[in-house]
């Protein structure tokens, strides 16, 4: 089996679990079942992954966590793709001063670790909601994408078929939409796929610090934080969410790697 097959299989399973979470979960994810008798319970038939320190069913939390983590990641990457492709096309097509200014901004932003750029707006936001998290994660994820798109647009712009289209009076927007974008779809999809894995990691980190998804929404990062004080007594709490995270990021990285190999066999 190739990496692409393993990765896409895993991604498919994860997406299915996320979509079906309300059906598959045996309990509502934030209901505290029995604070006296059912805290940090080990895996059993009624609670296949056990319960957490707040007496909530862990399987249900991890399943709903997939919904939250993957949902945020996919939407944030969608935002990043839209912004990145727009900036890249504008920069590459316009050239000149606008291009120079935009690309200097992108250079500066790329030099800063993403966690820092994410933490500054988070620190200043009063109440962080899920749409705000998506906006922040998406708004800090488009820099590399815009560079890539810009380079492709600049290269394509010099090609004879684009010159021909311009010569016969095809409006630029149409040239971009019909001729350029289909040509750069491949690399954009690769970067976006890798991006989903990165955003899942980032959101988990933020939620672990208590700065991400607000409680009691289950996020894999906050489940790990819940499990930290009972690491020894109930390792399944942090462990199950940790494994879910690794599997997810691995899946998207494998698909991204595999797709890149497909598109450019020399790059492996």
């Amino acid at each position: 089996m190739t990496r692409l097959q393993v990765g896409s299989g895993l991604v498919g399973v994860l997406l299915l679990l996320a979509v079906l979470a309300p059906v598959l979960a045996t309990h509502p994810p934030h209901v505290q079942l029995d604070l006296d008798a059912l805290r940090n319970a080990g895996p059993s038939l009624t609670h296949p992954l056990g319960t957490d320190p707040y007496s909530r069913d862990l399987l249900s939390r991890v399943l709903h966590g997939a919904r939250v983590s993957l949902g945020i990641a996919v939407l944030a990457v969608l935002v990043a793709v839209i912004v990145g492709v727009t900036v890249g096309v504008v920069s590459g097509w316009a050239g000149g001063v606008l291009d120079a200014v935009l690309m200097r901004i992108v250079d500066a932003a790329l030099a800063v670790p993403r966690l820092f750029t994410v933490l500054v707006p988070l620190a200043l936001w009063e109440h962080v909601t899920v749409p705000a998290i998506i906006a922040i994660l998406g708004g800090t994820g488009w820099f590399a994408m815009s560079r890539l798109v810009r380079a492709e647009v600049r290269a394509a712009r010099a090609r004879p078929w684009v010159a021909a289209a311009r010569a016969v009076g095809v409006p630029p927007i149409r040239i971009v939409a019909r001729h350029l974008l289909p040509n750069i779809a491949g690399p954009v999809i690769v970067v976006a796929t890798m991006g989903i894995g990165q955003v899942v990691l980032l959101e988990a980190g933020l939620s672990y610090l208590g700065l991400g998804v607000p409680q009691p929404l289950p996020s894999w990062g906050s489940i790990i934080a819940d499990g930290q004080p009972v690491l020894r007594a109930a390792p399944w709490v942090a462990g199950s969410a940790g494994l879910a995270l690794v599997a997810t990021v691995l899946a998207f990285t494998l698909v991204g790697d595999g797709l890149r190999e497909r598109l450019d066999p020399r790059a492996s």
Partner: protein
Amino acid sequence: MDTDLIRFVAGRLLQGALVVLGVATLVFVLLHLAPGDPLTVLSDAPQVAPEALRQVRRDFGLDRPIGEQYVRYLARLVQGDLGVSITQHRPVTTALAGAIPHTLLLAAAALLVDFAVGIGIGVAQGRRAGTRTDRLLSVVTITLYATPVFAFGLLLLGVFGETLGWFPLGGSVDPIRHAGLSVIGRAMDRLHHLALPALTLGLVAAAYTARHQRSALLDVIQQDFVRAARGRGLAEHAVLVRHALRNALTPTITLAGLALPALLSGSVLVESVFGWPGMGRLAAEAIGRRDYPIVTAAAIFAAAMVVVGNLLADLAARAADPRLRSVR
């Protein structure tokens, strides 16, 4: 010292100062765009007299026009006055002075682990590309690459700290025994506390370095001068170390400077896992508690470290590759 190098460093430091000024301005603007000021929370409390609030606002200069506040803020920054922490009731500079050395120690140790392990694995893979060992190591590095650094930290903490008891569970020194130890004892105590956080941060970063090093070595091995060295009948070891590796290390060395900011961002999470009293934990806590003077200082520190890291990366690249020395 050649003047080219001095001019290069001076130019970059000037640029860096502008970047730091930009970040300081950005944080100031973002802070003032947000509704209210640090005292808004208090105005909801009935026991605080409006007159007292006005007095505090006057004392902190919060009633001045925004332009004047900005100029004062910059003037204080330049003088090294970062204000007083709202939650810790001590000067921000004092808090930073306590935290920054811890973070730099952790980052340096992690960088060592990162490069020793990353280059080692990458070279081991690159020289026998396509074999079972290579594939196995690829699985290891890609899994580690996909592992959240804080989850990996908790795993190490759970196994080597809590279960086996080989390492302490957190902090940077033993709070009770440390003061009474000899100089060597203190150093050992610190290393003992440093081990798990540095391994956590370093090994996760090493996964990336190894992937990078593997492909860099593969690139070089396919080139003509390596084939020529082999053709001259040199031993495989000499070909690898003296010819291939020397060139394949250049891109990795460039990574070192860039790894510094990346390790610092990772330390935000790792320090929280291990209760390591550095900048990362200070910043994470300050963000949670809306301690704006500390948040501002942490952002400026992060910007400065990014500038320094990039400068180090360029200097390392120039040292490793003479062709870059004419580039300003």
